[in-house]
């Protein structure tokens, strides 16, 4: 049996897990190749979705016959014996399943209900080397942010302060969040991501308290990278905010960034925005988010790298990534991911239609490319106006230079 075909089909099933026909086809190939235990997993999934499928039942029988290995836990085997027939319920298993999620049985009124954890602090394993392309950005990130953090002696020698954070800006979908995660990975710090949805909920409720709480969580998890996504949502210009709620949120954010009444040691504040021009200028003053870094759409080499990353694990054949990279000028990283997804979808639909499983080819990419346009167009229009008319202090010089090159 052709292992390559099985691998390709496995990849196809991974990208389209709901396609039962494809899954059963893969399972039958696995059975024929003598890989019964692997086939059982796929058949069990198919049976869970469609318990009456005759084909799946037959395949399960064949797979079980090929290999007497025990069925996986997900397999619907009604004949399985209960482990503790005497009590009828496995209390130990249930307790270990629930674990710490069960609250105390009684409270005395003085203990506050902590409620669910408001923010998830995660440990990230991503490093800067995992970021495709963006060579220049990584260099600048290293020079302006990481190197001073990593070299305390040099920092002391040159009297460099650790105060201040970094603002990443650029068009949407170009990897700002991923870069922030990579910074956390480089620093070996935990990562606290605050998104727009969290922020807007904060606005409606007790906004200042929530911002304070957010920094408290970051301080208690130090070393921690606190990543404020879409900063313009939290820290928009106060002159444009009509409601006092939004203004006080910015004030609280300023207080927390300054570390008034608390120590921000070990908390590295990173922020990202597509619209830095809408961010309150006070947030960008020295000691706050005083370093800015423009994250641009990937260049040709980076696009090729990004495409290869997205195609890894998919059943592809004779894909000319160099040509694709050339044809996708102006595409963001997210656009490239969407392109790969669309091409896969084209191949999948064709396979479903013809009943013949086939690899993803250049024709699928050409068809997808004909329908896709770079998504950063509206952003470019805004950015061009800002660079032309609102660059009084030269803070958008790098953006202006890039836009002029793209003319």
């Amino acid at each position, binding site marked *: 049996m052709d292992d390559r075909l099985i691998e390709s089909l496995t990849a196809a099933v991974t990208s389209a897990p709901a396609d039962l026909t494809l899954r059963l086809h893969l399972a039958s190939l696995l059975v024929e190749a003598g890989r019964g235990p692997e086939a059982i997993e796929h058949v069990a999934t198919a049976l869970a979705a469609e318990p009456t499928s005759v084909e799946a039942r037959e395949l399960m029988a064949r797979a079980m016959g090929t290999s007497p290995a025990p069925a996986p836990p997900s397999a619907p085997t009604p004949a399985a014996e209960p482990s503790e027939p005497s009590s009828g319920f496995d209390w130990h298993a249930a307790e270990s399943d629930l674990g710490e999620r069960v609250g105390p049985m009684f409270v005395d009124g003085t203990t506050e209900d902590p409620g669910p954890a408001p923010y998830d602090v995660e440990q990230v394993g991503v490093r800067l080397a995992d970021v495709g392309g963006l060579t220049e950005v990584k260099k600048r990130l290293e020079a302006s942010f990481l190197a001073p953090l990593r070299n305390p002696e040099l920092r002391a020698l040159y009297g460099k302060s650790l105060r201040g954070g970094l603002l990443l800006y650029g068009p949407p979908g170009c990897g700002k969040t991923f870069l922030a995660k990579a910074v956390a990975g480089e620093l070996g710090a935990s990562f606290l991501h605050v998104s727009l949805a969290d922020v807007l909920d904060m606005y409606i409720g007790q906004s200042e308290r929530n911002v304070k709480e957010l920094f408290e969580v970051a301080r208690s998890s130090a070393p921690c990278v606190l990543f404020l996504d879409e900063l313009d949502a939290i820290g928009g210009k106060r002159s*444009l905010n009509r409601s006092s709620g939004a203004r006080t949120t910015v004030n609280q954010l300023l207080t927390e960034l300054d570390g008034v009444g608390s120590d921000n040691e070990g908390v590295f504040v990173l922020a990202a925005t597509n*619209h830095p*021009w809408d961010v309150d200028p006070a947030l960008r003053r020295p000691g706050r988010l005083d370093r800015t870094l423009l994250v641009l759409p990937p260049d040709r080499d980076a696009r090729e790298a990004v495409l290869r990353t997205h195609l890894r694990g998919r059943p592809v054949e004779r894909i000319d990534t160099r040509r694709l990279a050339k044809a996708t000028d102006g595409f963001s990283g997210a656009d490239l991911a969407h392109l790969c997804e669309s091409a896969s979808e084209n191949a999948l639909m064709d396979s479903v239609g013809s009943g013949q499983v086939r690899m993803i080819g250049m024709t699928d990419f050409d068809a997808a490319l004909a329908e896709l346009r770079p998504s950063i167009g509206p952003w470019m229009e805004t950015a061009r*106006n800002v660079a032309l*008319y*609102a660059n*009084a202090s030269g803070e958008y010089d790098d953006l*202006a230079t890039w836009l002029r090159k793209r003319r």
Partner: protein
Amino acid sequence: MSDVDHLLERASALLELGRPADAEHAALEALAADPTSAPAFVVLTRALDGQRRFDEAVGAGRSAVAADPDLADAYVALAWALVGDGRADDAVAVAGSAVALEPHEPACHHALGWALLSSSPPRHQEAHDAAARAIELEPGATPAYSVLGLALAGLGRRREGRKVLREGLRINPHDPYLHNNLAKIDLDRGLRIGRTGRHLSAAAGAIPQEPVVHRNLDTLLVRFAMRLVWPTLVALSVLRLQVALDAPWWSRAVTGAVYAGLAGLMVAWFSRQVPRGLRFWARGVLARVALPVRLIALAMLAFAACVVATAFAPTSLAAVTEQAAGVLLRLAFVLAAVLLVAHLVQRRRHRRG
């Protein structure tokens, strides 16, 4: 708080953050949960208005009014959408309904004032009264100062108009519309290039997407270019004399160098008054201005080129370029005179209409 209320809060917050596209999505979600919600239609109208999709905004505004005919906010949102869509006369009637429903709501008077100011011909006195009422109800509402200032300027009381706008700037020194409107009043008079440039810089810095500010900057640039005519005229007169007296070539070159230096200093001064990067944003200005202005500007450019050529060309050629400069100057004056007459005729027709 119900889901719809929550979504509407969210949409309103997004609108305030200047994210009309996101606000539109939130408003649509609210409408999916309650298709008859008038406040959701109001937010949707404002979100579409913010994206300059005026036609759709008018449709959403009409739905808001249909959903709750007693909601003044719906009329206000529809009025703004109608003004954006160039239907200011309809907007006046709609804003009038809002005022009738909520006579003590400054936003209604403000919308009415702006609609009156935008109607054709502008109804300055009524706009003045509406804006004055809005300010009386809410003295801190700086957008109403813009309407009042422009209405006063339209009534010929420019000095008072400027005073009102400056008063608004004292309340909110960052209001970009007040800066733009102050600049507009100066532009209409053609005076104070430096002050106009500074106001327009402040406006462009805060609202770089606003096409009105771009247009005003273009106009200011043309005005400044016209100012350069005076040193050019002086240089031409001196050069004519030098050519007539058969003065040595270097004396003409000195005149040319002085002229070029003076013009350079004026340009350097101007570039400090306007948004940074003059050579970038000013690029293509001739293609953006109206055809008659473009013709005059081209004639003046050719005139200046002839003056420079007269200064540095050999004597035989200098006589020709000096003659050509004179012809081009006359041509520019004739064009300007025709343009002025056409403008006056149009204004008179406008007033009669």
